[in-house]
């Protein structure tokens, strides 16, 4: 019968782990005020920009006082796993869902089911535009892509060869890519040599940059519609900044250091803290019967260059301390 004791012990181990990792304060407490449980879902847990959204969401929940944030996502960007988790939140009957969609079309039917079940849904960072979600908070991706393309074209003096970096499948990245391509069309002397799909993987991105630099040694510039190249300090080491310029989305650390080292010339910052805080605020407003006047809330972008980097970092420090 010893092995049956082992079976019991097997379940005691995860129990102890679960108890160890869950602080008592994170469970909903019964108070006089209506307590809301909002599920806030990034695309995955391994993408660094979302850590700031988590800070923003938890800060907003604390400020509201009656909101518990359930921060959950797949380990890596896996649309099927994200859908499974979303469905799980519907069966758990959470009070609201704020989600950054890995694949908006894939999640549309499930988001609609949540809304039909009386659970308000807002999207942030990456939208599901065909769904019944109440609102979207984030950049207007097409416009942001156009800005990135325009700034990069100016940097290159309107001529040369460029390679683009994206991750196929996400609606927001597709729109940014379209925006970049639209801007570049205005510069007939700029030729796009290749569009690389890095599959939301920073390591793969670094590898692609290294191999493509060998393949296109005279490349004039790189344009990345996500922040993967600047999520590591040495990702751009193979690129010679004197010959090849770099423009990328995202400004989270270590991107400013990469810019200081002269490896990247243009960064486009998003409202990272706002993704979480605004999404939670929107859900709380919806629960209070207050709908946003416009379902699309454009957060805008910050264009960061070596000239305004210090000013941008001072503002960042203020937001972190807030």
């Amino acid at each position, binding site marked *: 019968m010893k092995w049956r004791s082992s079976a019991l012990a097997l379940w005691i181990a995860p*129990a102890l782990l*679960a108890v160890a990792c869950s*602080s008592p304060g994170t469970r*909903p407490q019964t108070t006089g005020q209506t307590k809301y449980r909002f599920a806030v879902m990034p695309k995955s847990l391994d993408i660094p920009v979302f850590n700031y959204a988590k800070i923003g969401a938890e800060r907003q929940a604390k400020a509201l006082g009656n909101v518990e944030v359930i921060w959950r996502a797949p380990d890596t960007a896996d649309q*099927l796993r994200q859908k*499974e988790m979303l469905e*799980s939140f519907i*069966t758990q*009957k959470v009070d609201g869902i704020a989600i950054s969609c890995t694949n908006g079309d*894939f999640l549309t039917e499930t988001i609609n089911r949540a809304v039909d079940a009386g659970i308000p849904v807002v999207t942030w960072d990456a939208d599901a535009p065909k769904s019944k979600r109440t609102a979207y908070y984030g950049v207007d991706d097409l416009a942001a892509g156009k800005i990135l393309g325009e700034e990069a074209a100016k940097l290159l003096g309107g001529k040369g060869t460029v390679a683009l970096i994206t991750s196929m499948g996400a609606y927001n990245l597709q729109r940014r890519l379209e925006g970049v391509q639209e801007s570049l069309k205005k510069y007939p002397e700029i030729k796009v040599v290749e569009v690389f799909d890095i599959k939301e993987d920073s390591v793969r991105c670094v590898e692609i940059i290294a191999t493509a630099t060998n393949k296109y040694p005279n490349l004039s510039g790189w344009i990345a519609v996500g922040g993967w190249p600047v999520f590591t300090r040495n990702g751009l080491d193979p690129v010679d900044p004197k010959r090849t310029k770099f423009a990328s989305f995202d400004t989270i650390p270590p991107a400013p250091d990469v810019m200081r080292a002269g490896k990247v010339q243009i960064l486009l910052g998003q409202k990272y803290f706002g993704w979480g805080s605004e999404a939670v605020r929107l859900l709380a407003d919806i629960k209070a019967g207050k709908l946003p006047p416009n379902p699309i809330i454009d957060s805008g972008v910050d264009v960061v260059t070596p000239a305004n980097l210090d000013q941008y970092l001072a503002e960042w420090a203020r937001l972190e301390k807030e």
Partner: protein
Amino acid sequence: MISLARVLKVREVSTLAILLLEVAFFAWYLWPEDGRSHPFLNGGNALLIFKYSAIYGIAAIGAAMVIISGGVDLSPGAVIALSGVVTGHLFVNSGMGLGTSVGGGLLVGLLAGAVSAILVVPVRLPPFIATLGVMGIARGLAFIITEGRYFDVSSKMPGGWQPMGMPAGWVTPLVMVVLAALFQVFMKGFQWGRAIFALGGNETAALFSGIPVGRVKTFVYVVAGLLASIAGVLLTLVQGQGKADLATGYELDIIASAVVGGASLSGGRGSVLGAVLGTLIFGVLRNALPQIPGATFYDRLIVGVVVVGIVVMDQLIAKKGS
């Protein structure tokens, strides 16, 4: 009278006991404190666990057969994706009927299994290398066909599609249960099924006993490919998209399910029913762990502890038995 100890020594029964213990543990741990309905112990959530586990479960039947025969198959995740992509391509782009498109998707699985079998049997590559190659080929073909986009199968499916009058979400679990029952009977009650055990137990002895080793191995890999493609076709039809990056990394979860369900990686031992129960053990973990407050980053660790625990326990039982 059969004693409880003897009943629990049946591998499928002990796996079922572990599953029930797991369910009981999470039912207790996630018991709601504030009068809300139980977030884990409800019919909708049970269906959800079955719905998503079935994708792994159907493929795990084939994986268990391969492992019992003394081999290993690393290709099911990629074959799932390629079958779905081919089904989507035929249905959406080529304008073929649903039946023909499904047939095309299943043919992909048969071909992938046949290629693995050719590499393992006449070419004599180790199964690990052969199926690793097939995994890469299948995933690569899926990306070439889709060019990073996806086939929107849902847009061409009849509205409110209900195969055999049941909700689409029920189809995959039902197919898994039927296939598990059929293959369990086949493996235990038919000479060809017992030959698979004999082959995995001792290939030389099986050969001298007159078992057509090459044909049995070929059969096992082809069936495993077919089962993975059934999972892929169902995934595409139920979830509405054929996409190249679906089921990325699932091969390891599928193999782990088979091992947790009693399959020995050295061959000759295991059960297809146990493999399906193994996928349910993982399905419950995937569903319940995200519901534990504060455990966001602990999911993988806990899953790892459980896998190691179950396999160690299995080894102890095997030692005691011998």
